[in-house]
């Protein structure tokens, strides 16, 4: 889109007169940040309320997952390989960063392949990749695992904490705690799942939605179109990211995932166990499943005192409504996961609020 057109549409959004106040939810953490970063959230008309969804993989990872990773290290002295922002998340009793400072080996990697490389280089060490993330990262994790299996890298395994996005949105609507009039759906996730995967929003809940990209033009046009669908009562999932999102999704990636994983229930921070929202390695690959390979006794999972990440992830409150926000809980000393992750709603509010 030409720049002058972009300015024109941003003015339309700014001056938009709604028939009544509306709540729309952006599901994806990358969108949360993009709305702030591009300044689009800043030009929202007053009556249009943007609610952040549960789409930040680090944020929704329950404490129990990290507790297990920490116990595995304690008992089996493995090398953990993880994406950077996981290390600071406070688990029930400690964090990966803390155990690292106490001598545990926790390597920050940019891709699961890097973790596999560590395992190949250091054959006398057990390397565990902490596999969290949504549909966007699952395919690369699956490819890595497949390579490990094919090459027989026996000292490599994954602790799967991967999650599927559509069941979480489904669960939020079933809970019905917050009134949401329509959804801005994640562009990257939809590349994998396909737009059809979101049809349930209309069929089951009569909610319109748009699939959108991440550039300012995508955010503005997506928002304008969603408001229009809501106001005209048009219950559809409209794909505005056609350059890359198809109806059926990326079948190659989906087949890959199906070959390696079974769909399983998964626990989400703040929401609880959501049926069919997680992945588990198929039994035949159990020697690569860190949870089975390294049995541990799990400590009781506790939530961080006073932290309201759960309600934030369910869209019930905004970060500044949490009493810890910006005082006890800051990016430097985070109490909850939403303040840790780059894509977390608290971190975005903390960084960008005026």
């Amino acid at each position, binding site marked *: 889109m030409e*720049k002058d057109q*972009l*300015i024109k549409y*941003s003015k339309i959004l700014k001056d938009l007169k709604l028939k009544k106040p509306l709540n729309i939810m952006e599901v994806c953490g*990358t969108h949360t940040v993009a709305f*702030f*970063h*591009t*300044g*689009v*959230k*800043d*030009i929202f008309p007053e009556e249009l309320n943007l609610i952040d969804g549960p789409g930040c*993989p*680090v944020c929704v990872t329950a404490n129990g997952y990290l507790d297990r990773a920490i116990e595995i290290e304690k008992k089996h002295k493995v090398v953990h390989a993880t*994406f*950077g*922002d*996981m290390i600071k998340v406070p688990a029930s009793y400690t964090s990966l960063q803390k155990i690292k400072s106490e001598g545990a080996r926790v390597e*920050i990697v*940019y891709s699961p392949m890097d973790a596999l490389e560590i395992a190949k280089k250091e054959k006398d060490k057990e390397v565990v990749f902490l596999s*969290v*993330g*949504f549909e*966007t*990262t699952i395919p690369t994790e699956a490819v890595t695992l497949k390579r490990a299996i094919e090459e027989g890298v026996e000292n490599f395994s994954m602790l799967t904490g991967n999650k599927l996005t559509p069941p979480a949105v489904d669960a939020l609507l079933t809970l019905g705690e917050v009134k949401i009039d329509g959804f801005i759906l994640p562009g*990257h996730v939809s590349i994998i799942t396909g737009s059809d995967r979101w049809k349930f929003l209309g069929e089951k809940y009569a909610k319109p939605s748009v699939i959108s990209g991440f550039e*300012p033009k995508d955010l*503005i046009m997506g928002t304008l179109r969603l408001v229009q669908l809501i106001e005209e009562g048009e219950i559809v999932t409209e794909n505005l990211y056609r350059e890359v999102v198809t109806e059926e999704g990326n079948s190659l990636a989906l087949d890959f995932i199906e070959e390696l994983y079974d769909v399983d229930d998964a626990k989400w921070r703040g929401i609880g166990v959501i049926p069919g929202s997680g992945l588990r390695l198929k039994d035949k690959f159990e020697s690569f499943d860190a949870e089975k390979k390294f049995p541990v006794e799990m400590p009781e999972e506790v939530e961080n005192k006073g932290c309201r990440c759960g309600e934030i992830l369910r869209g019930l409150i905004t970060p500044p409504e949490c009493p810890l926000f910006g005082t006890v809980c*800051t*990016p*430097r000393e985070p109490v909850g996961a939403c303040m840790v*992750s*780059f*894509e977390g709603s608290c971190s975005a509010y*903390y*960084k*960008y*609020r*005026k």
Partner: protein
Amino acid sequence: MDKKILLAHGNGGELMGSLISDLIVDIFGKESVQLDDSAIVSPGEGQLVFTTDTYTITPVFFEGGDIGKLAVNGTVNDLAVMGAEPKFLSCGLILEEGFEISSLKKILKSMKEAIDYAGVKIVTGDTKVVDKGSADKIFINTSGIGIMRGYSFRNRIIPGDKVIVNGTIGDHGISIMAERSKLSFSEGLSSDSQPLNRMLLSIGDKFGENVHFVRDATRGGVASVLNEVIAGKDFSIKLIEDKLPVKKEVTGVCEILGLDPLYSANEGKAILITSSENAENIVNEMKKFAEGEDAEVIGEVDTDFPGKVYIETYIKGKRILPPLQEDQLPRIC
């Protein structure tokens, strides 16, 4: 000569003597290095300006330079941003036992190129060798002396002033980050290490105290420098996203790693805050120099959000650029 640095290279004996005279002094120039306990220099008329900085970086050699080039340009720039003319440098080396002498030679040669380019001299130095594992290959300290030329780059900043940068931002930090993470798409990225003294002094000589403030935007990048400037002040600084010069390669890596060029280190970029009426002429003067080719007015001082730096995005939305909280970490997706 031995291929690797030995502890004996630092023990004050013969090996150390040959390292200093055959390698270091030979490269830096016999006519400028004084081998006595201190160097006696005559910097000329004017107030003296004195600075020191220590350089550590992994990798030691990188696209666009090495630790030696950084150590010269960094100290030269620290003097130049005060409005001083850099004159003399010292060079303190801390070498790790086992460091290749060929690498040291390469670094010293690059320092020599940098001092010649910047027009300064290394007049004194020191060399220490530490046990393997006690340092990361090589650490360099350079101190520098310069003289003021009758004006200062530390003046009162007022609303209406313009913010200028001399070229693309984030090049050094992002290039090093990409190199460290061995990104395959880091082509076209390179550190921007360069001396700014000639450009800055030319501007100082012509525009004097119409230049209200200058600082090199090293660690923490442009956003951090500006946050230091406005901390506790009753004005704010607005940057205009549309005007920010960023290389497309830098934008690409930032998008993938979740980094922000505004918070990434530069090694050859200065932020100038100048009077509004001279801003355009200053930019034109900067453009006469290779290091100022892409100079641009990127923002202004106003009073909209006192004590804060903010950015007006392409679509005219606004967001705050807060002080950097933590090192930027690569993110998940």
